[in-house]
């Protein structure tokens, strides 16, 4: 079992490595010694890290399979874009840093509100039924976002549903999504968001509330008998994750000049889930590594051309099948002492 000390070391190392990486990358950007593709990927990588960390809170720590996490990202992204456009056009707020901060904040809050609204029905269900309902909500969000039109005229926002005839500057154009977005997101902001999400998730996990969340996951009946309100703590994890996903979405949305509502489909939810599973269920630093690696990897595999996604699929299956091979598992445990713990829950703490 990971003692308190070991946990503290892992956490410190995680923060230290992230800060070091940020410094190195900033220096490289200033030196212009970084490739264009990688530079363009830095902000999306930050978003996907936050997505993976937050989904891990739901799947790993709270133990509920969510297949609609991209829906919260979508809500956050489009709320962020609307807020940013509104502040710029309606209030003449030029300062991009302040605008970005407010947009990300609003993205998180609005996604959190939806998290509560969706969580109330969803968390009454169990297991696969819960998973399919999160999938359904993700698809509904995608579908509805396809029909929303928003424009800004003076200081007022105009809303249209299925109707794009709005006065003023269009911010959201139904199925065409957000166009001509002022890309104000920066790598620095992305880095701060990553650190923020880490602080939130790691501190939450290692607190009274976090223990209650994990108790509800490990043994529902015993947790209830100990006086833990299961719904409250499931909700806490779900909504916190929704807020973080909304923030990640706002960051992502404000780094792209155009953004389609169909971007945040079921496939993106699944991608984030793949980050979480490959990084280790409940293993927060693992999520960071896998989100980074799996965002860069497809770019690096570009030389494979059409075989790229095929290679990715085969890799995914191989990792899963070999990773769960009993023989290899035993070997793995022998090779790395101190790892001979049960599979689930062992990595619950970073």
């Amino acid at each position, binding site marked *: *079992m990971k003692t*308190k000390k070991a946990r503290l070391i892992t956490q410190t190392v995680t923060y230290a490595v992230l800060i070091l990486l940020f410094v190195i990358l900033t220096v490289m950007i200033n030196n212009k010694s970084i490739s264009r593709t990688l530079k363009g990927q830095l902000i999306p990588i930050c978003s996907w890290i936050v997505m993976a960390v937050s989904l891990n809170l739901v799947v790993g720590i709270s133990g509920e399979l969510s297949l609609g996490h991209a829906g919260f990202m979508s809500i956050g992204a489009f709320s962020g874009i609307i807020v940013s456009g509104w502040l710029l056009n309606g209030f003449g707020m030029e300062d991009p840093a302040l605008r970005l901060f407010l947009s990300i904040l609003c993205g998180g809050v609005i996604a959190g509100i939806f998290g509560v609204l969706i969580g109330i029905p969803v968390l009454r269900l169990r297991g696969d039924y819960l998973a399919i309902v999160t999938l359904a909500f993700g698809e509904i969000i995608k579908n509805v976002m396809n029909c929303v039109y928003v424009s800004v005229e003076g200081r007022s926002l105009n809303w249209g549903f299925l109707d794009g005839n709005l006065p003023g500057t269009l911010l959201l154009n139904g199925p065409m999504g957000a166009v001509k977005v002022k890309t104000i997101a920066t790598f620095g902001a992305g880095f701060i968001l990553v650190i923020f999400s880490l602080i939130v998730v790691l*501190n939450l996990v290692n607190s*009274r509330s976090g223990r209650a969340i994990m108790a509800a996951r490990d043994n529902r009946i015993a947790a*209830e*008998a*100990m006086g833990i309100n299961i719904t409250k703590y499931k909700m806490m994890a779900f909504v916190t994750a929704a807020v973080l996903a909304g923030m990640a979405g706002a960051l992502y949305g404000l780094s792209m000049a155009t953004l389609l509502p169909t971007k945040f489909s079921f496939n993106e939810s699944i991608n984030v889930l793949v980050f979480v599973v490959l990084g280790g269920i409940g293993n927060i630093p693992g999520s960071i590594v896998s989100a980074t690696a799996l965002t860069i990897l497809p770019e690096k595999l570009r030389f494979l051309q059409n075989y790229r996604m095929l290679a990715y699929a085969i890799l995914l299956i191989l990792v899963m099948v070999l990773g769960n091979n009993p023989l290899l598992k035993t070997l793995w445990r022998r090779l790395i002492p101190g790892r001979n713990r*049960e599979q689930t829950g062992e990595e619950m703490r970073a």
Partner: protein
Amino acid sequence: MSETKRRQQTHMVPYPSRAIVPERDLGSMPVLECSHLGIEFGGLKAVDDFSVVMGRTEIGGLIGPNGAGKTTVFNLLTKVYQPTHGTMMLEGRDMGSMNTVDVSKAGIARTFQNIRLFNNMTVEENVRIGLHNQIRAGMFSGIFRLPRHWKAEKAQHEKTLELLNIFDMAGMADERAGSLPYGAQRRLEIVRALATNPKLLLLDEPAAGMNPHETEELMENIIRIRDQFQIAILLIEHDMNLVMGICEDICVLNFGKIIAKGTPEEIQANPAVIEAYLGKRKEAEA
């Protein structure tokens, strides 16, 4: 609840005449009073007409053959199942509208027949889950590490070690609960239940799988817990040495119904109990 308040309530509730052992705990209010409690599963009466009263510091035993409905009684008392008949009162408070969480907060804690520890957490964390509603700190103080969080963590840590010391388990605090030996897991479950600061502790087969020496130790510990914490304990057990050794009154269930109540001596001499355990004698049938 303050002691004065308890005394006040005592006068509001008439002392029940159905007490198993009326001479015990006179002058104080019963901690638990069930009347005509029952549950049906699709027409099958798993527990029927279950009426008992437990004194504030009583050690009660619930025995009976396999499938008699003993664990179901525990599930009713902790509201894992909602009773279909009857009422339950905890220190004079009606438990009708409570759910499992409310019951725990109101003061009933339990252990499980098939151990239900949080296996992937440490021993200390398991006990801290028990302390969940005793020493509190909110989500925001946890996330932003406010002083309240550190204060609660420190208080929980100290209380945990104190509780673990009942069974000399403080040295195991950092071990994974699932990796403990069987007997230690059972003891940990009792500690975890005690952490919720109960008024009534329900133990479901606490000695199962223990050797005679461990059982002996457990018996001493149960009495010690009662004396130290001044709580009532109701236990289900198949080990008759334990039951007859420490229980002050015993209730025998068969096919969901109470067939006998009384002191260990009375129970041992009761023909209905002997029949339920050993079956009817052939001659009697003829």
